[in-house]
């Protein structure tokens, strides 16, 4: 008894806390929090903290607070403005082509025919391989020395000399768009396929009885009913195209020739890890983030405006 009284106050507190913890009943809601906790901690450590830290870096120089001067400095740099323009061209070019091929793909995949599963497997393969492999493959096919594209074009007498598609400043951005749309169209294709599968069949039967052609049905039934799915899919792909352009740029053109195919994310990488200028790299990365949010937000806005009408 006497011993117990001599326990130090801090120890008493600890013991008290342990007893208190044991008394907390594990209610359902607390248990759910406990299950979410590991994911939350990982997310805080490797998602939220780096994000805030990047924002912090982008308004500092060394340990000195400099406000928006990093942003002013990059927005006054020719190559950043070029990358800004390139990102827009790249994203709209790639997503537009992806949308056309993706829609065609979705229509094919939703038709009932023998070998449909094989076509569906073939449809996701471009998406499944590493992006750098896609980049290297297109570089190989478009190569001016013995590349298959040049060989075929020469044989068909469409060109007189091999064209260095990847290294030529007139074509470099196009090769990037062609390669990226090939790599990424499956995402749109399958999202649209999911939408197509939800459409009520009766509508088509009714339209057919009324004598509508397939083309008419596509424009007057399929497209209007798929509007929501289309907007969501385009929003996702646009944001992805901004955010994940690095791999295809790096493996196909390395931003070249010069900086003509440099996009924001590849430029951010160049500033941060080639020039080791973390603050400017951070500012360019934030610019890329804002760009993705702005483009994605536009689709979201259109979606909600469409929903209200």
């Amino acid at each position, binding site marked *: 008894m006497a011993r117990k009284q001599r326990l130090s106050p801090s120890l008493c507190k600890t013991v008290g806390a342990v007893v208190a913890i044991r008394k907390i009943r*594990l209610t359902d*809601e607390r*248990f*759910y*929090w*406990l*299950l*979410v906790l*590991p*994911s*939350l901690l*990982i*997310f805080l450590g*490797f*998602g939220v*903290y*780096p994000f805030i830290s990047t924002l912090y*870096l982008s308004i500092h120089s060394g340990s000195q607070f400099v406000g928006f001067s990093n942003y002013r400095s990059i927005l006054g740099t020719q190559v950043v403005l070029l990358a800004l323009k390139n990102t827009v061209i790249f994203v709209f070019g790639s997503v537009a082509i992806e949308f056309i*091929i993706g829609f065609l*793909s979705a229509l094919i995949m939703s038709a009932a*025919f023998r070998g449909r*599963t094989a*076509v569906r497997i*073939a*449809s*996701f*393969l*471009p998406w*499944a*391989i*590493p992006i*750098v*492999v896609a980049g290297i493959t297109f570089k*190989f096919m478009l*190569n001016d*020395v013995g590349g298959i594209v040049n060989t075929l074009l020469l044989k068909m007498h469409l060109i007189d000399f091999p064209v260095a598609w990847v290294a030529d400043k007139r074509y470099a951005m196009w090769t990037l768009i062609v390669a990226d749309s*090939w790599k990424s169209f*499956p*995402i749109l294709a399958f*999202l649209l*396929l*999911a939408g197509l*599968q*939800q459409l009520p069949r009766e509508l088509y039967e009714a339209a057919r009885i009324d004598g509508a052609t397939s083309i008419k049905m596509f424009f007057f039934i399929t497209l209007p009913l798929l509007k*929501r799915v289309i907007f969501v899919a385009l929003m996702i792909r646009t*944001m992805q195209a901004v*955010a*994940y352009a*690095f*791999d295809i740029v*790096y*493996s196909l053109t390395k931003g070249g020739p010069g900086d003509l195919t440099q996009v924001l994310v590849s430029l*951010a*990488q160049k500033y941060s*890890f080639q020039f080791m200028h*973390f603050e400017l*790299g951070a500012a360019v*990365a934030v610019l890329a*983030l804002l760009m*993705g949010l702005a483009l994605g937000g536009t689709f979201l806005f259109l979606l909600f405006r469409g929903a209200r009408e």
Partner: protein
Amino acid sequence: MSPIKRLLFFAVVLFYLLYTLFPIYWLAVNSFKPAREIFSLNPSLFPQNFTLDNYVRVLRGEGIGVNFMLALRNTVVVAVVVTLLGVFVGGIAAYGISRSKNRLIYGLPLVFLLFSLTPPQTYAVPIFTTLRALHLLDTQIGLMLVYLTFSLPLPIWFMSQYFKSIPREFEESARIDGCNRFQVIFKIVFPLAAPAVSTSAIFIFMQNWNEFFFAMTLTSRRAMTMPVAIMNFQDARAMAWDLSTASSMLAVIPLVIILTVLQRYVIQGLTGGGLKG
């Protein structure tokens, strides 16, 4: 369909397949050709002098000193471990989210999803400096931690949607029969959601098998993965297409086999990614 329409349809399908498959086919075929045949002015659709020599040379790391075997092993280890961890950590979180009535928890999948649509470059510098401070640069553990983070959004979204469709009565009766809370998750809910769990596992595996940017930024030798090694072959000797095609194929072949066998889950994940909203 009338015969003409039918013919037209299959012509379109044929062109479509040519578009999707030719690049992969061309990569594969050339990886089995000797270098001089790759540069032939009359390229053939099949290798005239079939050889596995390119693969042997890649696996030996010939010419550029890249230890491709090590890269292959790193890729397998990192992808497998992150897949197991991701399904476990993401799965229990998804269960918590699907059952909780708390609004904060309810909104989490959307936050995660938004996170997955932002550029990795926004996170790269602090992650790099943190791993450097922890002496985790160029280690499998460091790469796994980062990969795990970026692997969680999709499975959390996908599995929480699926778990919502599983009636709570199953869990309640299991509890009455004497299962504890964790047993309910792993013995009742996960097995019932097997398709969603498999799909999530495949997606995580694929994402990390293919990941390039963080691998390139955070590893240099010991923990280098295959996509980085492939890029190194290409960078070191740009015209060595025999090595580039063969090293690319080494990353593509295992994945394509796995995904083709499990195609049902892949297609389910791509079409049912919870984006029906």
